[in-house]
């Protein structure tokens, strides 16, 4: 069932059938070739990365190209953490592996690219405490029936956004799937409040899943989001994952926190992590 048939089909049933067709597209203007920034600083001790690219046509025919040759650094007070471009991946810059952000501190990303300079500032907010792991199996997550051929292995489907959190976070779940023992991961955001268009389309299209059974160990990593980062992600979702429903909001540009007309976002997050074992009772067994 497509996004549109999901709601419109239901009320109209036999009478009306909504349809989606591909439309021949004409680009409406040359790409401005603006700088796009995607970077973060977290409380993890690791090499933090910043990716620089350029805007592309509305329907790009190829991936955005990385922007090389920039001077990139993250500044905390008087401390400057330089980022160096990865030789094999144009446009990807990273710090050394010892950089750690601190909760409550403010960090500034600075980019020098030719004559132009760009900057963005973020603060690391404390992360929301974990809730009971059993809630992972409650709605709106969806535990499907045992997969065909194996009565003990279930597929857990995640929404794109879980609504109603006290503060916004991003949760990443990873586990070794019980059949092929491959590592799988899935994530969702938790947002406060409800965006009607988002809730409606939360399970439209492809959603991320984990295969698991009783005894599977799940590692959950949680990232805090500042209010402006949450709003940025919310707007990105409204323009991408949640575009195409009857409650669509007015299309509008997503505003990031990069100066000088660049697009994208530089974020800061506290990171918390835990692991837990899937209980048989959570699977309804």
């Amino acid at each position, binding site marked *: 069932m497509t996004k549109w048939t999901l709601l419109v089909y*239901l009320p109209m049933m036999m009478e009306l059938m909504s349809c989606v067709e591909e439309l021949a597209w004409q680009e409406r203007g040359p790409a401005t070739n603006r700088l796009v920034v995607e970077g973060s600083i977290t409380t993890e001790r690791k090499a933090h990365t910043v990716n620089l690219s350029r805007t592309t046509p509305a329907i790009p025919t190829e991936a955005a190209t990385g922007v090389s040759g920039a001077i990139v650094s993250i500044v905390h007070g008087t401390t400057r953490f330089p980022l160096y471009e990865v030789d094999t991946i144009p446009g990807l810059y990273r710090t050394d592996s010892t950089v750690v952000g601190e909760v409550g501190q403010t960090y500034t990303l600075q980019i020098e690219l030719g004559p132009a300079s760009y900057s963005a500032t973020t603060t690391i907010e404390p992360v929301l405490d974990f809730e009971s792991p059993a809630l992972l199996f409650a709605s709106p997550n969806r535990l499907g029936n045992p997969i065909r051929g194996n009565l003990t292995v279930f597929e857990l489907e995640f929404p794109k956004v879980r609504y109603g959190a006290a503060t916004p976070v991003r949760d990443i779940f990873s586990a070794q799937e019980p059949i092929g023992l491959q590592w799988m991961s899935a994530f969702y955001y938790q947002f406060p409040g409800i965006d009607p268009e988002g*809730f409606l389309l939360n399970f439209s299209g492809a959603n991320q899943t984990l295969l698991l059974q009783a005894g599977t160990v799940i590692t959950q990593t949680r990232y805090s989001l500042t209010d402006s980062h949450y709003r940025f992600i919310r707007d990105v979702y409204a323009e*991408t994952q949640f575009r195409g429903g009857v409650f669509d909001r007015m299309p*509008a540009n997503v505003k990031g926190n990069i100066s000088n007309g660049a697009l994208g976002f530089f974020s800061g997050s506290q990171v918390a992590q835990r692991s837990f074992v899937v209980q048989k009772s959570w699977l309804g067994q």
Partner: protein
Amino acid sequence: MRTLCGVLWLILMPISALYGQHTILDKPIHLPKTTATLEQLLGALSQQAQISFSYSNQLPLRKQVTVRQADQTLRSHLDDALLGQSVEYIVRGNKLILRFRPPTANPDSATRNVTLRGYVRDSASGEALMGASLYIQEVAMGTTTNTYGFYSLTVPRHTYTLIVSHMGYRPVSKRIRLIEDHRMDIQLPATTHQLAEVVVSSGTSSHLGAASLLSSHRLDAATIRQMPALAGEPDVLKSIQLLPGVTTVGEGSTGFSVRGGGLDQNLILLDEAPVYNPSHFLGFLSVFNTDAIKEVTLYKGGIPAQYGGRASSVLAIQLKEGNTNQFRATGGVGLLGGARLAVEGPLASGKGSYIVSGRRTFTEPFLWLGALADSTLRGTHVNFYDGNLKLNYTLNEKNKVYLSGYFGRDMNRLPLLDYQIQWGNTTGTLRWNHLFSQRLFSNFTLLYSRYQYRLATPAAAVPFSWESAIADQGGKADFTWFVSPRCTVSFGLHSVYHQVKPGQNRANPAFRVPGRQALETALYAGLDMKVRASLRLEAGLRYTLFQNMGQALVYQYNQVGRVVDSVTYGAGRIYHTYSGAEPRLSLRYQLAENQSIKMSYTRLYQYMHQLTNSSLSFTAFDIWYPSGPGLPPIRSDQVSLGYVRSLGNRQWEVSLEGYYKDIAHQLDVRDHAQLTFNPYLEAELRTGRGWSYGLEFFVRKQTGRLTGWANYTFSRAWRQIPAINEGNAYPALFDQPHKVSLTAGYTASKRVTLGLNWLYNTGGAINLPVESFTYDNQNVPVYGARNASRLPDYHRLDLSATIQQPPKPGRRWQGSWVYTLTNVYARKNPLTIYVGEDLSATRNPAQPRLVANRVYLFSIIPSVSYQFTF
């Protein structure tokens, strides 16, 4: 015995004399229509009637008199000839004596005015007819009935020819001798099958021509039912959308914009009570059941002073009163609208009447069948129901009361999404018509209206919901003073108490948007005056007062929308006031008998606002919010100029009208505004300026086998709001420069009626991306100027055929089948276009692609419905 005979002789003698007088004066006389002296006329009458006249040569015998009507009684000929003269006539045997009227104690009594008043009704149902025209031929003046079918005409004592007419009814001509105040109720028979046999004399035509209103349209239920409708369900708002100057956003929506105004700038009144969301089924149908509706009037400009509160238009919907003569039922069954039934009949021996109507969808069988094929549909409920009730009762000649109400709910439960949506309206009005005098009509109204919706996720781990509501309670006192046939004055006082609960979340009060209360009061006076035979003036002034009242928590924001403080006001305390005067002026100048020009100016204030950030006009989650310290009222000023002409003995009416509207404090929301679950709602709002202009060409054929209208509208609607579109002007969402619509009904036979609609309009304004960027592996669109792109042009043809079952003697049941083809040539009119993942039927899920998706709601829809009356 002798005494008894004497008494009988005394009684019968005068009667006999009166009978003789009656016989002579009522003798039919034919005179050619001409102008002659009074003496010549008397000579002709004497010859024709075989009687002799006796008169003094002091009488004004050389005065020119006109014979306007060739065939009438001797009395009528004399009354016409002596109109305005101090001359009277008396019968003596076979002789008529003309003499000067003797002076009386009260010199005014001879020429004293008398008042004719009463109601104009449908002869079959007894329904009062609003806007019926009453025209006195001899003085070339007249009036129209008000909303309740009441009229009052004050004229000098005389014998007159009164012609009463109303569209869709046979005109009635009455000869009346007015010597004292008199009440006369007039019943008009409806024409059948729209085959109006209108025979309109030139004088009547003149008056009717003057009554034609520019900037307004009136549709009755029969006209609405005759138009082809989506899936065979006739609908008031869909019909309105076919009129010039009215646009909508998206297919299948009840939302509409009038002359560039916002979707919330239309005051929708159901028997005087405001309706805040007129949508069923997310807008595919409106909440107004055509079985219960008498007529609909849309005012786009030149709005009478009695109306106010919205910046663009007034849509006044009148429910039927119910049949005062007999019990009747009407109903129907259709796939989209479900089943509907309306019953009506007299109350208390014809002193009153009632009508009760209801509708309900029956999607359950389809959902049940769907669930067999797709288990995810189990537990799904998608339906609506509504009901109307109206009672009226005549207490006595001067007092009448009306009680009317509406209740409706949309219930949508989608377990697949853990999602429940409910919304609905409740309205009620209690009205009392009181006649203070022959000429002073009054109406007192108590009204109630409530709109609410609820969005819930009952199966969520932490269930939560969002509820929003607005409720109005108020009263109105409206007076109409029929000063003379040349002048009618209206005045009144309205007061409405608004209670707004923008948003509540029972599970988490942190998301609650503080409630608001406000008192909206209006005092108005209006004048409708025929300044000269060719010039009519309608002027009015409405003064409005809007007071925010506690209890309220009011946040104060800085310039970037951050909360800097808050103030709590106690219950009942008035903490902010807006006020404004709304002048109204319309001038209509009659160029000739069948053509006139009209110009109007209207100022309107709007204090209640609908907050929406939806790109379509599905309005279930919009929030109504009042003006307050940080949100000024919208003020609109509109001027219009038009020309109207009737052709072909008033079978055709042609009009051309231009307008310009300026809107101050036009409201919009910032990009990506969050309206639900946001206590700081006002920080999302932005105000600026709006303006629109246009030209509307309208042709209407009102009688004959073929009826309908065609119109072309050129219009533009612009907004300029700081902080939106970088402060640059941008087209409004419903800016559609060119619109053409053609609506026709053809009565093929007594049993078969055909209908046709064809619509065309420029594609609506839309935001389409000009480039994109990649973030978190998602292709995020980048837009250029707001609404700078266009959807493809919209056009659609609908056809319908209504076939009545042959009547059977002795059977009251009359059934008809309505066959409809919506979108005959299956054009896929896009509802929207967006760039995103390929969602078409031909997509390959394994290889997701980014494409431009065109979304359309339907192509061709054949449908059949059954309607009945008994």
